């Protein structure tokens, strides 16, 4: 009983202190005549954002949304790349090949022990800025233009409305899922090889191809044309984005590799021995016996790394990549009230992190060994 009273008092004290601090902030802001609301989000931004359709007459809220997009752009692709690289390096660390094993270990030890900020700045300053300037850009087969203003590759460009094509693509996706489920069920029933990936992928590609021509080719491919200062057409990968993406990927991969290695080691030796005993090849042993079990163990710590990657993307500030932190910083220096702007920023990262946590928790729950 006394224990509960103690907890209640403690909780009340904490809440009281927090309330007091909040009240103090509001009081002081009002005293200094600094606005305490969130109306500032409607103000026009006044600054420009590179690589976006954003116009400086749009509101700060719009600017923030561009920032969110850019954060997502670097985080999602970073997560995918870091996972692939991390798994490869993690498996390589357990290779029986001396050179592969040592190289993987060197990679992990190098990048895990250097602050990610330094890695990002190194890539930007040491590699991407050292590419030839635009006036002496490297051109490969008239398809790719490489300079320190970015890598430009041929890309699709929308011509007219893509709505009809979007519908066909969606239908194709649904159909692919249906085919996937059907092949899986059939495999469960008859034991015949399912090849579900081939089937579903084939259906999707076929649908996309048919849809593309049926709706009158809504996309065309444009190749970059080099002007004097910039390139027109194609898709441009800015050096700032590339440096941030690469830095985050390489750093996070070194951590994921360690988790993968640990998870594989955590799968009992008996499983591998049993796999060998039934005559599975090395690849089959990994693919069907070891990795699925290791995967299960590694989900919670890897999810943690994903969260870190998203949060580390705020280091884009250092190389002038306009993700959400950079946009917030610029807004603050252009008259947005600092306290509110930071609160909004914290809220945005909280949403990011909780979303990732929700997804990984879902996967984790699905894959946890169920006591049957």
């Amino acid at each position, binding site marked *: 009983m*006394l*224990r509960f009273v*103690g907890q209640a*008092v*403690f909780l009340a*004290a*904490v809440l009281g*202190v927090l309330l*007091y*601090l909040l009240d*103090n*902030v509001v009081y*002081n802001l009002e*005293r*200094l005549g600094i606005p305490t609301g969130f109306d500032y989000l409607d103000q026009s931004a*006044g*600054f*420009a*954002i*590179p*690589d976006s359709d954003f116009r*400086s007459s749009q509101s700060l809220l719009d600017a923030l949304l561009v920032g969110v997009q850019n954060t997502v752009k670097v985080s999602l692709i970073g997560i995918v790349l870091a996972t692939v690289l991390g798994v490869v390096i993690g498996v390589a660390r357990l290779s029986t090949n001396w050179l592969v094993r040592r190289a993987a270990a060197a990679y992990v030890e190098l990048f895990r022990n250097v602050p990610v900020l330094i890695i990002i700045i190194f890539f930007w*300053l040491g590699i991407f*800025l*050292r590419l030839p*300037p*635009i*006036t002496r850009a490297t051109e490969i087969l008239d398809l790719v233009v490489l300079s*320190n*203003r970015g890598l430009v590759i041929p890309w699709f460009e929308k011509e007219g409305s893509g709505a009809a094509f979007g519908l066909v693509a969606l239908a194709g996706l649904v159909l692919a899922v249906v085919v996937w489920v059907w092949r899986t069920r059939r495999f469960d029933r008859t034991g015949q090889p399912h090849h579900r990936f081939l089937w579903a992928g084939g259906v999707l590609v076929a649908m996309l191809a048919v849809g593309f021509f049926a709706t009158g080719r809504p996309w065309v491919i444009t190749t970059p044309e080099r*002007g*004097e*200062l*910039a390139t027109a057409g194609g898709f441009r990968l800015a*050096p*700032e984005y590339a440096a941030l993406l690469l830095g985050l990927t390489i750093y996070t991969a070194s951590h994921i590799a360690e988790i993968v290695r640990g998870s594989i080691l955590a799968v009992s030796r008996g499983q591998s021995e049993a796999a060998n005993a039934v005559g599975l090849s090395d690849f089959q042993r990994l693919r069907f016996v070891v990795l699925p079990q290791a995967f299960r163990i590694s989900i919670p710590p890897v999810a943690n790394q994903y969260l870190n990657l998203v949060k580390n993307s705020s280091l884009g*500030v*250092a*190389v*002038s990549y306009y993700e959400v932190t950079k946009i917030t*910083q*610029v807004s*603050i*220096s*252009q008259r947005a009230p600092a306290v509110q702007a930071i609160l909004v920023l914290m809220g945005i990262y909280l949403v990011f992190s909780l979303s990732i946590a929700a997804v990984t928790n879902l996967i984790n729950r699905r894959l946890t060994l169920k006591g049957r």
Partner: protein
Amino acid sequence: MRISKVWLLAGALLAVLVLAAGCSLGDDDDNGNGEAAGDTGQAEAGGGGGGGNLLAEVQDRGTLRCGVNDAVPGFGFQDEAGEFQGFDIDFCRAVAAAVLGDPEAVEFRPLTAEQRFTALQGREVDVLIRNTTWTSSRDGTEGARFLYTTFYDGQGMMVREDSGYESLEDMDGETICVLSGTTTELNLESRMQALGVNYEPLAFEDNEPLQEAFVQERCGAWTSDKSQLAGVRSNFPEDQGGPESLVILDETMSKEPLGPVVRDGDDTWADAVNWAVIATVQAEEFGITSENIDEQLESEDPEIQRFLGQPVEGEPFDSGLGLPADFAVQVIRAVGNYGEIYDRNVGEGSALELPRDFNALWTDGGLHQAPPYR
């Protein structure tokens, strides 16, 4: 036993929390009160002093405390010997020469951009001469009084000479480096919008990555205050082509009047500082330099005689400023006239090589005009 442990823990946690809260609150209050105290402090100094007494205080003390910059080449910096040098520094010396008769009687206080107004409000410096732009909100809310504008600056654009740019309109599609969080960034955007020129901004927090991006031609242009660009240009590394490889376009994208600042409410002091500065301009209008000052003392021109404090019809002219009659002589002997100060620090005679432009005398199409000395 267990309960007491729980209580102990809770108590300790609470204590830490309260302490932390107390500290942060204390800080908040300090900041708040600091500014408030500054404000009331000025009010008192103004109201109670009935015109103020800083002039007497400085003359009593025998040294002038001058708030300056120590990191802008040409304007305020420390040379290899640790001596303060620059355009703003010379005006500190001019004030010291006028008020104390000794240009060396200055105590320089290097201040950052954030510190400067707090230091002024807190009476840490007598005058602030640190490339500070005169704006309405600074005049209104910082308790500052801006005096004669010593340097008319403006935002400019620096490009490589071989780029062939002659105006902003030529820069369509170019990437432009800018320091983020500055008015520069906003000026750039509104100016380019108005001109309908497409450009890509690349904004950095610090000058170092910005310079690196510019050196590597990641961006083809660099925008900032013209005086600062000139400083960067004069220090541009030789292996990158040196200063000659860069040009600053003629176009000016904003106005940045820089000048000395004193506290509100002490008019005698403000007048003294103001006229010490104006004397340099007046001297240039009269053609008086640090070299011909001795000849000019013999001048027949009554205007010059009055300005130099020579007896006209028996009595030296008294302007009632509270300055010695020969203060202008002291100033000119110490630092020379405005043109000399300009040329020596930022003009043709310096590494910056800034043209006079707006900073020429009004008779030469510039903005500098000394109010009549009579």
